[in-house]
């Protein structure tokens, strides 16, 4: 490493705790957060020749985001694989905590009914409903979708109206503010 790169690398390392904090904030354990933070700095080192020494935290955050997204994809893929194994195991297991079949079936039917109705919404409305169901705040949805508050409220209003048409009176309370 050249002296110049060494100096810039050390300046960036001054943000190490904050990078660890970034991963903690996004739900990683302390140990995982440190591993991922180290990956950030290895990646930074690999690209040190292209880094011009400006906007240090923005640069690190950009790298950390990329690594966090990749880590999420890895974790998601591993979970899906594990779920498949679990399904096989569960086929032969009796567990008192398992939801009774009739309740599970009823819940599944309701979910399917709601999902089918949501899929019939126009794309703009459907996206808003999906984010709403995920528990995003209005502010988060506005930020993510690039919508104004009034546009978002209007779309959710239209979506509720349309879902009510599709689902009938059962939807009276769904997604309502009251």
């Amino acid at each position, binding site marked *: *490493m050249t002296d110049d790169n060494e100096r810039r690398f050390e300046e960036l*390392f001054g943000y*190490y*705790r*904050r*990078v*660890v*904090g*970034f991963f*903690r*904030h*996004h739900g990683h354990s302390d140990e995982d957060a*440190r591993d991922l*933070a*180290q990956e950030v*700095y*290895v990646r930074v*080192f*690999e*690209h*040190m*020749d*292209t880094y011009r020494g400006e906007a240090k935290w923005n640069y690190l955050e950009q790298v950390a*985001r*990329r690594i*966090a*997204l*990749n880590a*999420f*994809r*890895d974790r*998601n*893929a591993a979970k*899906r694989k594990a779920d498949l194994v679990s399904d096989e195991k569960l086929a032969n297991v009796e567990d008192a905590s398992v939801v009774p079949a009739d309740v599970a079936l009823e*819940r*599944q039917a*309701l*979910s*399917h*009914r*709601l*999902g089918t109705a*949501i899929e019939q919404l126009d*794309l*703009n409305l459907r*996206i808003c409903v*999906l*984010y709403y*169901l*995920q528990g*995003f705040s209005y502010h*988060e949805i506005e*930020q*993510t979708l690039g919508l104004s508050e009034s546009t978002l409220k209007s779309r959710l209003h239209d979506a509720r109206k349309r879902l009510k048409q599709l689902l009938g009176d*059962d*939807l009276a*309370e*769904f*997604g*309502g503010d009251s």
Partner: protein
Amino acid sequence: MISKPDWDVAGRDWIAAGRERVPPPTPEKIEALFLGSLPQAEADRLREQLAYYPEMVRVMTDPVPLDVGADLPEEEVAADLERIRRQINAPFAAAVRTPSRRRSPSWSFVATAAAIALLALGGIAVLLHSRSESIPRSTKILYADGDRGGTTRGAAGQPPIELTAGTEYLLKLVFWPERPYRQYRLELVDAGMTPPRSIWNRNGVQRERDGSYPVELAGDELKPGRYRLILYGVQERPELLATYSIRVYAK
């Protein structure tokens, strides 16, 4: 009447089931979405896809409090720095050497050792050379993948360009941006890795008068597999312009 909590549970169940059929988007696509560089239709599709993965959305949008890592003890920070240094010291110090140095006889041994070390680490050393530094043996014209709607010129659905390992190429990436950019940037992604991983990038790529972006590729450093070259236009921030699929075959 079905209660609101029951509907909420039904909604969450439906979204959870959705994750089984909708895969998480790639980081490259997500970054392009948040940079505003995707065509509207693609951006909408991606937003819908992302709705199933709120964790990924929050990685892009959540401001991180300043003090969340402040309690990490000094000795652990020092230990982590040591681990990082161990990872990057020898092999990467050699890998970042400029291509011209690699080509001089006095550096050939170092470059070979670096390449072996990188391969041993599962990495790939990709060396791009300025046109004056080597004579390419084969010229290939690359058209954009055609998977980016109206912003990508070139034939839609282009199959990957086929290269042979061990051969030097002059790649001419063809793309006409809707407006000129201050500079252009290229990134090479190993598409065979899960997830795909960036293995090289270069700023300051020049655009020729014929609309191409010439870049020389030392195929002897690429192992057989699938890759993507990604072209960015840089004004204030990089904007994804086009991607080019490459398949490298063994000699």
